[in-house]
Each structure stands twice: as C-alpha cells, then as structure tokens.
C-alpha cells in the first residue's frame, strides 16, 4: 500500500451534498479556468426546471461533487492497490473534468442527431428519398477530450499537454498503458451516479434518489486487481442505489413534461440547423471547431436560449411554434402515453404496436385535421433496467459476461473474497431476480400553433386512444 502524505489544502468549497470539499492548488487552478467555469452555466438536468422549479443545479457543482467522492474512494485505508501520488492526482483531476465537454442543456443538444422528425418516420410523408448524414455531433466525452487537450487554459493548469492527454485518456476510458489503473477507472467512474442521484433528488425535491452515500462510501474497497466494489454488508445499500436510479428515471429523468420540452427544443434545433439558421454548428466537425476556440465560453444554456428567443419569430411556422411553446412554457399536449414493463423474451408489446400505428396512421390523422406532421412529437424513453447493463442480456446470461459487458455492473465483495463479483451473481440479492424486466414509455405529443382548432388536442387524443392495440 502506498501511503503518501496528504497534499496541502488551498481552498475549501462548501457543497450542499458533500459539505466541505478540500481542494489542492492544482485542482483550484483547473477549476479557475474559463473552460471549466463554463460549466456554471450548463444545467445538470436540461429542461427539468420547467417541471421542478428548483432543478437549476449545474454541471459545475456536480463535477466538484464527483471530485469529492473520488477523494474519499482513494483514501489509502480503502484500497489494496498501489498508486503513486501522481496517479492519484490524475484520477482526481479526471473525476473533476469528466463532464467538461457537456453541451448546452447537457444531453439535450448533444442528442440532436438522434431526433427523427415526423416527416421522416411516418409513412406517406416523405416525397424524396431520405438521406442520413453520417457526421453527427460528437458525444460530450469526445468533446471533453478535445477541450482538455486543446484549450490552452486547461493545458496550462494541468501542467503540460502530455498530462492533459493522460487525464483525457482516463475520463474517456481510453487508458491503455496501465491495465490496473484502467480497471480502476472503468469500475469507478460510475461514482458519477452517487453524486447525481443525490444532487438531482435535492434539486427536484423528490425523495427517490436519496441513497445511503456515507454507508456506500465507507464500504467501498479496491481489490488487488484494481476492481472497485462494496462489501457484502452494504448489499442492501447497493440494491437501494439501483432502485433509486430506477425510480429517478421513472419520475424525474423521463418526466412527461420535461421530455416534451426537451424533444420540442431538439426538433427546433435540428430543423433550424438543417436549414442553416441561427449559426448552429452544422455537423460534428463544426462543433469540434467551436469548442477548440475562444467561443467555447459562450457554448452554454444561454446559447440555446438565444436561439429559441430568435426562433419565436421564425418564418417557418413549425419552428416558430416549437420556440413559442418553450419560450412561453406551454408544454406540448400529450395525446397518448403507453407505459410498458416488458417481460423477459416478450417480443411485441403495446409500445411497438403504438409505434407501428403512428407510422401507418399519423399522416392521415394530420391531414384529416388540417395539421402539419411537424406538429407531432413521437418519443420514447431509453429502455430502463434495474441494473445498468445492455438490456436483453438476461440476469442468467449476465453471469457469463466477459469483462467488457460486466463493467457497468455493481460489484460486491462476498465474504472474505479478495475480488468482487457482480451484484447479479449474489444469490440473495433481489437485483438478479428482477433485473430482466425492461421499462419503457412511448409518447405522442402535439404542438398547437396559432390558428389551430381550439379543440384539436382533444379530438386528436380521442383518435389515437386505441393505437396501442393491434388492429
């Protein structure tokens, strides 16, 4: 075990979740860069503040929170793996910088390329062959990599370009040189969720993310091979963490109103971008150019707010309608919601039937009511499981997963064993028993525009009421 002397504390920051966070001089220098300060103006939960007024906490506070957790995890008494002081500092800085590449409104703008407009996905709507442009916006992890290795203020704060590359390798999990460090970072960066569940619960005022953080952190151990897990006595706390995540997704992250605003905003951005409006980066390379220059500091929530504000007067009635809905906080009308808890091996579900019906019947419905297809938003939540692993790998199959697929699973040190096992392998854990079920929500919204029949939403709702049933 390597017991290095603690580094001097340069500053103390008080955090609503973790209390006092002691920062070293190097950490302060990184935090004080303009590239990092940008995160003060990027909300953690996208447009959730339209639903939960207090959900305005930022990526900045979350990043400090993950640093605080990493500091506790790396405490010498908790690990049997040897780390040099420099490796420890690298891990702390990687934790601090892991979200530095987030787009305005976090995942909202990042996922613009995943949006499908109704005109593209509904039968009978497209008059020309549909082309997929294969140069989407990069993930926030790739953008973070670029920022850390290209922005001079961060390179200077980190000490050198080589070190900046090393830190970027760590948080983007592209570290190859040190297998042990690589395993540690792979199994530990989901410390991320220990912070965001509590912070998001606090910000929204919902109780579902209230996990037993102290007990979990006090139970964390790092095995001789570098795997991170919790001791068996903390199994209930680990199970509770997974249920907390599940219910936060059900209630907060997949909330119907938040989802409606975010989908409306994404569709607005995609329509505006694809028609060359408002200077929105046209593709991945354009985003990469933007984040490498000084304009990075302006790439915050305000960047999107400004576009929305301008777009309220857009000549395209669909863009203007979407912008007005966001600007005036008039949520798109929910016409139909289909909630599915899919059992193992089930194939067709009411959700897939609903999507099929939307594809086949939405065009005619819009035409009947004299509406544009672009006024309809068809969305679905990500498939949600209790344990975060690729869905449709059943709990049984998960017992034979290779390291790649086992990586996201929480690990438990059972009995006196030196190496942990995945939580689904613990025979007395409830997770393995019910981890095969997948929850998903399918929703169809309507965005009214001036001039539409006042009763259009009611009539549309009645028309689609049975679209989850097979004909």
């Amino acid at each position, binding site marked *: 075990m390597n017991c290095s002397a603690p580094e001097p504390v340069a500053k103390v920051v008080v955090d609503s979740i973790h209390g006092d966070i002691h920062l070293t001089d190097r950490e302060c220098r990184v935090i004080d860069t303009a590239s990092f300060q940008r995160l003060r103006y990027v909300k953690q939960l996208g447009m959730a503040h339209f639903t939960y007024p207090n959900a305005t906490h930022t990526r900045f506070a979350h990043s400090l929170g993950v640093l605080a957790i990493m500091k506790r995890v790396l405490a010498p008494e908790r690990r049997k793996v040897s780390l040099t002081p420099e490796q420890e500092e690298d891990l702390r800085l990687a934790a601090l910088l892991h979200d530095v590449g987030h787009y305005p409104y976090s995942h909202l703008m990042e996922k613009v*390329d*995943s*949006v*499908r407009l109704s005109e*593209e*996905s509904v039968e009978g709507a*497209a008059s020309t*062959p*549909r*082309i*997929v*442009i*294969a*140069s*989407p*916006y*990069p*993930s926030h*992890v*790739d953008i973070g990599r670029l920022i850390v290795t290209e922005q001079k203020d961060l390179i200077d704060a980190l000490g050198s370009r080589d070190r900046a*590359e090393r830190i970027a*390798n760590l948080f*983007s*999990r*592209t*570290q*190859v*040189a040190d*297998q042990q460090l*690589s395993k540690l970072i*792979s199994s530990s960066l989901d410390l991320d969720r220990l912070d965001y569940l509590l912070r998001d619960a606090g910000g929204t005022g919902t109780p579902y993310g209230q996990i037993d953080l102290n007990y979990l952190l006090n139970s964390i151990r790092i095995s001789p091979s570098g795997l991170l897990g919790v001791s068996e006595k903390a199994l209930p706390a680990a199970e509770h963490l997974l249920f907390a995540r599940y219910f936060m997704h059900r209630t907060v992250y997949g909330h119907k109103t938040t989802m409606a605003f975010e989908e409306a905003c994404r569709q607005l951005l995609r329509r505006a971008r694809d028609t060359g409006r408002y200077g929105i980066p046209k593709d*991945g390379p354009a985003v990469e150019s933007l984040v490498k220059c000084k304009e990075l500091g302006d790439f915050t929530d305000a960047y999107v707010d400004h576009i929305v504000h301008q777009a309220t007067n857009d000549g395209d009635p669909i863009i203007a309608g979407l912008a007005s809905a966001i600007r005036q906080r008039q949520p798109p009308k929910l016409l139909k919601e289909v909630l599915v808890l899919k059992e193992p091996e089930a*194939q*067709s579900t009411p959700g*897939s039937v609903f*999507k*099929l019906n939307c*594809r086949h019947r939405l065009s005619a419905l819009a035409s009947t009511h004299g509406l544009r297809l672009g006024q309809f938003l068809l969305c679905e939540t*990500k*498939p949600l499981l209790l344990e975060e*692993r*690729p*869905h*449709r*790998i059943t709990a049984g199959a998960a017992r034979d*997963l*290779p*390291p*790649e*697929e086992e*990586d*996201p699973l929480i690990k438990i040190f059972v009995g006196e064993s030196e190496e942990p096992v995945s939580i689904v392998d613990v025979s007395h854990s409830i997770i393995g028993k019910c981890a095969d079920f997948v929850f998903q929500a399918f929703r169809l919204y309507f965005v009214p525009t001036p001039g539409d029949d006042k009763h259009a939403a009611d009539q549309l709702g009645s028309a689609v009421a049975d679209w989850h049933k097979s004909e």
Partner: protein
Amino acid sequence: MDGRQIVTRLVLAKLGLPEVRLDTFAERLVVQKSIYLAQAAGVNMGYSFRWYLRGPYLPELTSDVFSIASELKTGFDESAGWTLDEAALSALGRVQGLMPDGDLPARARQLELLASVHFLVNQRQVAHAEASEVQEVLRRYGKDYTSEEVAGALRTLRQHELLGA
C-alpha cells in the same frame, strides 16, 4: 430506433450483418468491432469507444444494437426508406474490403485484432506504429497475436486507408 440507431442498422447491413445476431459474445464482438472500423473509416455515428481487455468496446453500442434487434423481431424496421449519404457509402466500401471471411470465432479474432491495432495507433497509445510495440501492448492484455499477425493488421489498415502510411 432513434436517428443514430437507424444509421447503425444501415451500416451493419452494408457490412454484411443485416440480421444483427447477438446471442453470443463473439457475435456481439463482431458487431462492436465492425462499427468501430466503420467509424475509423469516417462514418461517424458518435460512439466514443473505450479500451477493455478485448480492445475497443462500448456498452452503449451494445444497448443500441439490442434495441435494433428487438425492434426487428417485431417485424418493424424503422430504417426502411433511409439511406446513407455518398461519403458514408464510399467509406464503408473500404471497410467491406477488410471484413474477414471464415467461421465466427475466426472473424471475431481478426476483427478484434484490426480494431485493437487501430485504436492503439489512433489514440496514440503507442509511441510508434510498429508491429513490435503494438504487439507488446496487446501481450500485456493477454492477447496472443503473433508479430506477423500484428504486422499484417497494420498493413491491412494502411492499405484500406484507415491508418496513415
């Protein structure tokens, strides 16, 4: 399928994997490495691969591909009517040229080698793109590729313009 899943589905079909079979790890590995190589050729689907014991891999991609396979089983193919742009089709043409033949284990092994070598060189995880240095890193990860296999992979990647000369 969302927009990215549609692109992924189209790319897999172009690379000879239209059925999206995922029952075994080897099948999932073939899918992962095929998508990795497609991105390396310039068809950017926005996947940020990480390094694992078996080379570049991404859990989110496995999730996406399971979603695609799950939808296809319902008889509903949302990618129908979509097509890739000319630049993407051209890039995929180069990847098609290096897709290995043989049974599943042999294909999985060769694709793992190609993707791993590309990742190590492209992410600057080796100082020099030389077979001996790449082989040494792979050996640390328990891979028993011969120096001839590694040199062959480097040559193939260069021939198909996935790595600079």
